[in-house]
C-alpha cells in the first residue's frame, strides 16, 4: 500500500515538474517549492546524523567531556558563527569564518598541488611514442597559451592561441555531448518510471 501511494505521489510530482515544458504554471511552482523545502529539511537532518551527532555529541556521550574537552573549541566557534543573526555582534562571526577560510585555503593549496598540478604535469611529460602524445602536448601547450593574457595574441603566440581555441572547442563540444547523454539518460529513467512503475504500460 505504502509503495502504491508513494508511486502516485512521485508520479504527480514528476508530472508537475514536466508541466514546465508547456510554460511556468502553478503545478510546477508547487513542485519547485516542495523540492526546496524538503531538500533543506533533508540537509539539516543529514547534517545532524552525519556531522554534529557522530563528531560532537557521540564522543562526549561515550567517553565523557574530560576526554573530549577540545570539542569545546568548535562548539564555541559554531555558536560564534550564529552571531551573524545580530548585526551589532556580527564581527564575532569573523573568527570562525577566518578559521574555516584558513583551513579551506590550506587544503586548496596542498590539494591543488598534490591532486591536480603534479599528476597532470606528470601525465603530460611522457616519452613521445605515439601521435596521440604529440597531439596531447600540442593541445596542452596551445590551450595554456590561449589563456596567457600578459602579451597580445600576435605572431607565434597568436598562432598558438588559435590552435588552442580549436582544442578548447573540441573539449566544449565533447563535454556538451557527454552532458546531453547524461541528461537524456535521466529523462529515460523518469519516462521508465512513469510508463513502467506507475502506469505499467511497458
Amino acid at each position, binding site marked *: 500500500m505504502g509503495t502504491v501511494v508513494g508511486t502516485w505521489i512521485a508520479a504527480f510530482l514528476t508530472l508537475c515538474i514536466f508541466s514546465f515544458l508547456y510554460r511556468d504554471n502553478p503545478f510546477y511552482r508547487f513542485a519547485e517549492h516542495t523540492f526546496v523545502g524538503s531538500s533543506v529539511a533533508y540537509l539539516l*537532518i543529514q547534517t545532524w546524523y552525519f556531522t554534529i551527532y557522530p563528531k560532537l555529541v557521540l564522543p562526549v556521550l561515550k567517553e565523557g567531556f574530560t576526554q573530549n574537552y577540545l570539542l569545546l573549541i568548535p562548539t564555541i566557534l559554531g555558536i560564534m558563527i550564529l552571531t551573524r543573526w545580530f548585526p551589532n555582534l556580527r564581527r564575532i562571526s569573523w573568527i570562525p569564518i577566518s578559521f574555516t577560510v584558513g583551513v579551506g585555503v590550506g587544503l586548496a593549496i*596542498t590539494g591543488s598541488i598534490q591532486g591536480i598540478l603534479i599528476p597532470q604535469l606528470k601525465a603530460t611529460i611522457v616519452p613521445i611514442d605515439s601521435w596521440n602524445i604529440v597531439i596531447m602536448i600540442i593541445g596542452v601547450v596551445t590551450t595554456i597559451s590561449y589563456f596567457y593574457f600578459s602579451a597580445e595574441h600576435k605572431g607565434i603566440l597568436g598562432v598558438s592561441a588559435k590552435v588552442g581555441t580549436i582544442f578548447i572547442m573540441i573539449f566544449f563540444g565533447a563535454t556538451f555531448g557527454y552532458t546531453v547523454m547524461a541528461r537524456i539518460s535521466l529523462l529515460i529513467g523518469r519516462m521508465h518510471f512513469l510508463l513502467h512503475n506507475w502506469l505499467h504500460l511497458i
Partner: protein
Amino acid sequence: MHTIIPLAITFFTSLLIIMGFFIPRAPFSDIQQTMLVWVLIISGFAALLGVDSLLRQHIKKITTRSEGWAYSLVLILTFFIVFGLGVFSGVRYGTAFSLASSFMYAYTYGIIPLQATMFSLLAFFITSAAYRAFKARSIDATFLLVAAALVIIGRVPIGGMLWSKLPVIADWILDWPSMTARRGILLGITLGVIGTSLRIMVGIERSYLR
C-alpha cells in the same frame, strides 16, 4: 585594526594545514585531522544560518502577502513536515536513515523523483540551446558541432550500428583532443587557485570579512 585577529587566524590555520601536508608526522598530521573535524562541526552550525535565512524570507512573504506567498507556505510546510519526519524517525528507529522510516519514504518518493525530473528537464533545454548555438558559422563553431555530434552518436547503440568505428572515434575524441584541452584549462585553474589562496593566506584578499 579589528581585522588583524581574523587575518592572523586565517594565516596560522592555513599554515598548520600546509605543515600537516609537508610534515606528515605527529603533532602536525594530528592537528590537521582535528582541524578538519572542527570545520565540519562549524559548517553544521553554519547550516542553521542558511536555513534561517531561507525560512525568514518566506515567512516574510507570507506575512506581507507578497506575490506567490502561497508557494512560500508550501515551502515552509514541506520543510517542517520532512524535518518532523526526520526527528520522529530518529526517535523511533534510532536513525532517520533507516530504510523503514517515514523520513526515507519522503526521500524516496518525494525528493529523489523531484531531483531526477528537475535535472532530466535540462535534456529539453540543452537540446533547444544546441539547435540555436550549433550553427557552423565559423571554423571554431564547426569543431564544436562535429565533436558534440560524434560524441552523442558514438555513445549510443545506433551509432555503432551505423558505423562500427563511430564509438571508437567518440572515445578517441574524449581521451585525446578533448582531454588535452581539459588538462590545459585544469592547469590554469589550479595555478589560479594556488595564487588566490596565497593572496587570502597573507591577507591581500580579505573580502570574506564583511
